[in-house]
């Protein structure tokens, strides 16, 4: 059973109550149409079937079996058949289907048909779905039709040509000349399609562009006629004569005037006229003004005209229509590159748009607002943006924090202001701050000793109010650990710009309060493990600050404040130090391995063995390098309007993802200061993790550690000993039994003599063998990507001045739990002073200590055969 007419089918479908009903109706009908296609071969049946099929297709059901039937329908002589056939072809086929070439012949016949409506149908089909192949076959017909007297055909032919040029740009030459006639047409439809074709030609061919530049006066005249023409009801839209043509002409002028001073000069007058005479009351007028402004900004126009264009867009911003504000903001953002001074004048309106109800307008306004920041207005702009940050949508916040930090970095009038700004960012949107911003802020503070008291007080005050902002808490905890002593040592710090800051004045915290605050942070359920680790480190560092101040400060009050009293040498249970020990003890059984380890390690630091060295271990961290570019690059928006030429090159918005990724990479690289992740680097991991915040743990550097060591009064021999004791990640059991610990420490002694400063590759080196003129040095590298294996470069150096080492052979054995891969050495024969390298990889899934047994076999030039076996287990345990 099938329905007679398409109309009946539509009714039946509309009557369906459920989707399942609809599906069954459609399936039945589709089946009916299929059989009918096979059995009946009359045009009438085909006509109704295709009609029904197209409706089925529109509902989203498959209808491709009708393609061939459409082709047959097109071959019919009747207009209505052709019309439905072509409609079917346009719906069911597209340029990518091979079957399309089958219609070339029908199209060709119809293009030559005497009935202009049939020609129109064929042109329409050609224009909508022509493939490159069909276009090439029919280009001659289209060319011919562009010259007929019938305007209906002419305009369709021109648009077909647009399609052909898009598909096969090589064919454009033949149209360049013919399109010129279209451009001087009186008929608006033909003129419009001619303009579309001209735009297409100029975009594809520089030759056409040059030729059409000669027509600029002609186009200017046409535009002028439209401006001055009286009322013509046919093309009038809301009181403006043919806005579509005006927009198209302006667009063509833009392409022609771009980079051509002479053409631009010719357009100046008319553009000014359009800009001043167009009525901006309705959307139509706005469309023209908008197009004019874009054209003015794109071509080489007068300065005054450009300012006029910016002012038009500025006026758009105050418009009540969202659409107008939207286009104005995106255009102004683009215009920032060249016209930043003019755009600056509309700053206040732009900032108002930050509070628009439409999120896409807010987004654009934000983009533009960041682009507007420059040294002269940075205080005011950042103030505005900070107040917006409080109410901004969550999706804006990550970008905003990065960009405000970047702006503060780049245009800071003073470091103090910058620090203050960044703290405010952390305080308002601390959960959206990128790690590199936190890292860089810490580096900045470490580099500004005069600001440290201010920073620590400010952060402390904020933390007392709010512990929910990750970045604030992390920086705060770090600052308390490093500079906590300022809180009880120097009451009242001069606030920014010398004014007394009431808030800061009253900040005179007792150590117990600070420790309680840190303890509170540890208790919070939402604080991350990284932050907790930082808290533990801050606590242990504070314990040292407390003790050192107790020994230096003689004042009785101060001692009371510390809770140490007169018997400071032996802390009673109520003292802050005891409090710290209590907290560490709590976490010695933490489920997080890292926390547990730290807590245990730090607790052990209170043992009397460390009395000598504790101060050195826990002193302030060495000042890291500060990289302002990294902050700036972390902001991914267009900042400071490129034109201002800031001191730092910024990655523009083109590849935000890539640029930020790149910058964090380089930040890490820089922090590492060219040192590979080395044994010592890894060692310093836990004490110095705070140096650069959570992200850069693996990158804490040789440099830093070397600094620590350099600053201490202790000899180098003891320092590595202690540091490995502090941070050994070996099992807790191993740490608890001190004997084991010192077992491990037995080995590094030779290393430290050769160790820092490191060898050429700046990795730590370990001398494994040095006899008979041959020195073998090991350079272990830990690849963070492959935590279970250690890459060791072996360097053979013939230290003898005369002897040659021959037939060098190195054999290595490792414990059973490990696996060894060896590459061949770069040479087996070493002349006097020569070197060779060999790389080996130790795969160590059980994470046990790397121990090597080396068998070294070589002959000297004196004929002596050396065959020796040595043991080596001197790698630091963190290398595992």
């Amino acid at each position, binding site marked *: 059973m099938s329905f007679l007419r398409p109309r009946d089918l539509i009714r039946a479908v509309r009557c369906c109550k459920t989707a399942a009903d609809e599906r069954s109706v459609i399936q039945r009908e589709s089946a009916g149409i299929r059989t009918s296609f096979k059995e009946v071969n009359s045009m009438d049946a085909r006509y109704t079937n295709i009609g029904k099929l197209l409706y089925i297709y*529109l509902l989203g059901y498959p209808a491709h079996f009708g393609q061939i039937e459409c082709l047959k329908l097109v071959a019919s002589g009747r207009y209505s058949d052709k019309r439905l056939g072509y*409609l079917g072809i346009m*719906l069911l086929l597209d340029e990518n289907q091979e079957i399309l070439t089958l219609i070339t012949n029908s199209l060709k016949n119809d293009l030559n048909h005497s009935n202009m409506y049939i020609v129109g149908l064929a042109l329409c089909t050609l224009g909508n779905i022509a493939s490159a192949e069909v276009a090439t076959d029919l280009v001659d017909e289209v060319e011919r039709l562009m010259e007929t007297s019938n305007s209906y055909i002419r305009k369709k032919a021109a648009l077909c040509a647009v399609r052909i040029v898009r598909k096969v740009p090589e064919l454009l030459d033949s149209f360049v000349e013919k399109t010129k006639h279209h451009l001087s047409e009186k008929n608006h439809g033909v003129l419009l399609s001619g303009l579309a074709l001209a735009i297409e030609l100029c975009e594809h061919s520089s030759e056409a562009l040059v030729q059409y530049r000669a027509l600029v006066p002609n186009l200017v005249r046409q535009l002028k006629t439209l401006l001055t023409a009286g009322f013509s009801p046919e093309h009038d839209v809301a009181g403006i004569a043919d806005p579509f043509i005006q927009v198209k002409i302006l667009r063509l002028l833009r392409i022609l005037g771009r980079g051509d001073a002479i053409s631009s000069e010719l357009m100046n007058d008319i553009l000014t006229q359009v800009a001043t005479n167009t009525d901006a009351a309705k959307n139509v007028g*706005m469309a023209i003004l908008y197009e004019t402004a874009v054209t003015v900004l794109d071509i080489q126009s007068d300065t005054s005209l450009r300012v006029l264009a910016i002012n038009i867009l500025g006026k758009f911003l105050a418009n009540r229509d*969202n659409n107008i504000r*939207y286009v104005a903001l995106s255009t102004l953002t683009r215009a920032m590159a060249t016209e930043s001074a003019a755009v600056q004048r509309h700053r206040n309106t732009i900032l108002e748009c930050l509070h628009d109800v439409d999120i896409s307008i807010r987004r654009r306004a934000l983009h533009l607002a960041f682009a507007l920041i420059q040294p002269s207005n940075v205080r005011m702009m950042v103030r505005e943006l900070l107040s917006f940050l409080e109410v901004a949508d969550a999706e804006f916040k990550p970008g905003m924090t990065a960009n405000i930090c970047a702006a503060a970095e780049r245009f800071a009038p003073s470091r103090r202001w910058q620090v203050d700004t960044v703290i405010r960012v952390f305080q308002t949107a601390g959960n959206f701050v990128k790690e590199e911003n936190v890292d860089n802020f810490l580096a900045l503070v470490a580099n500004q000793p005069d600001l440290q008291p201010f920073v620590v007080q400010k952060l402390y005050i904020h933390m007392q109010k709010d512990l929910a902002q990750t970045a604030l808490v992390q920086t705060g905890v770090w600052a308390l650990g490093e500079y906590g002593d300022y809180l009880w040592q120097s009451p009242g710090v001069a606030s920014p710009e010398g004014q007394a800051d009431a808030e800061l004045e009253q900040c005179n915290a007792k150590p117990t309060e600070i420790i309680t605050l840190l303890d509170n942070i540890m208790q919070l359920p939402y604080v991350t493990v990284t932050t907790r680790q930082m808290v533990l480190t801050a606590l242990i560092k504070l314990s040292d600050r407390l003790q050192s101040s107790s020994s230096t400060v003689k004042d009785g009050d101060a001692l009371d404040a510390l809770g140490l009293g007169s018997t400071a040498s032996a802390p009673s249970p109520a003292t802050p130090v005891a409090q710290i020990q209590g907290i560490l003890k709590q976490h010695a059984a933490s489920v997080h391995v890292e926390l547990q380890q730290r807590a245990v390690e730090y607790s052990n630091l209170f043992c009397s063995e460390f009395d000598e060295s504790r101060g050195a271990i826990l002193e302030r961290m060495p000042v890291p390098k500060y990289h302002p570019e990294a902050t700036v690059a972390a902001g991914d928006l267009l900042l400071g309007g490129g034109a201002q030429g800031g001191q730092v090159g910024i990655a523009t918005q083109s590849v935000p993802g890539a640029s930020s990724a790149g910058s964090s990479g380089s930040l890490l690289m820089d922090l590492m200061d060219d040192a590979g992740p080395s044994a010592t680097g890894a060692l310093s991991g836990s004490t110095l993790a705070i140096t650069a915040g959570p992200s850069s743990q693996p990158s804490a550097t040789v440099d830093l550690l070397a600094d620590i060591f350099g600053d201490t009064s202790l000899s180098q021999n003891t320092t590595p000993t202690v540091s490995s004791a502090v941070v050994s990640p070996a099992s807790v059991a191993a740490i608890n039994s001190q004997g084991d610990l010192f077992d491990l420490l037995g080995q590094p002694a030779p290393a430290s003599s050769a160790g820092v400063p490191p060898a050429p590759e700046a990795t730590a080196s370990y001398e494994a063998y040095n006899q008979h003129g041959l020195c073998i040095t090991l350079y272990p590298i830990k690849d963070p990507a492959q935590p279970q294996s250690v890459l060791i470069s072996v360097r053979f150096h013939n230290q003898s001045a005369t002897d040659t080492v021959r037939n060098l052979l190195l054999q290595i054995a490792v414990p059973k739990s490990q696996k060894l891969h060896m590459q061949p050495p770069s040479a087996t024969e070493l002349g006097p002073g020569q070197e060779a390298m060999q790389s080996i990889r130790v795969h160590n899934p059980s994470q046990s200590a790397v121990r090597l047994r080396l068998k070294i076999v070589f002959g000297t030039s004196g004929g002596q055969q050396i065959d020796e076996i040595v043991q080596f287990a001197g790698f630091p345990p963190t290398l595992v």
Partner: protein
Amino acid sequence: MIRFILVQNRQGKTRLAKWYVPYEDDEKLRFKGEVHRLVSTRDQKHQSNFVEFQNYKIVYRRYAGLFFCFCVDANDNELAYLEGIHFFVEVLDAFFGNVCELDLVFNFYKVYAILDEVFLAGEIQEISKAVVMTRLDHLDKLE
């Protein structure tokens, strides 16, 4: 240029779809859903009529229960396309006499004919309502 035109009702049923750029069938289906989701959730009063869609822009306008959505190049003049949509709707209105959704359903092939008279190859073809109407009358007589 216009990449595609969709006319959808508030439930997301597509009443007219015209593709000037070839897409796979499943892509078309996905776009219909995505465009509907993008457009129908927007606040008519307080939001602009433009939405970014992939690398392009959707310029849309709502007439009663129907959304007319044009997907256009990112650097095209959105305001002008808004006028274009309005012109198309005016022609539909003049042709059907106070057009409603059902007219589009039952006369879908005529709607396509009107569309093809107003837009061709992704460009606006004719901007005079009078010209389009006379053409359509002629075409109707030929049936």
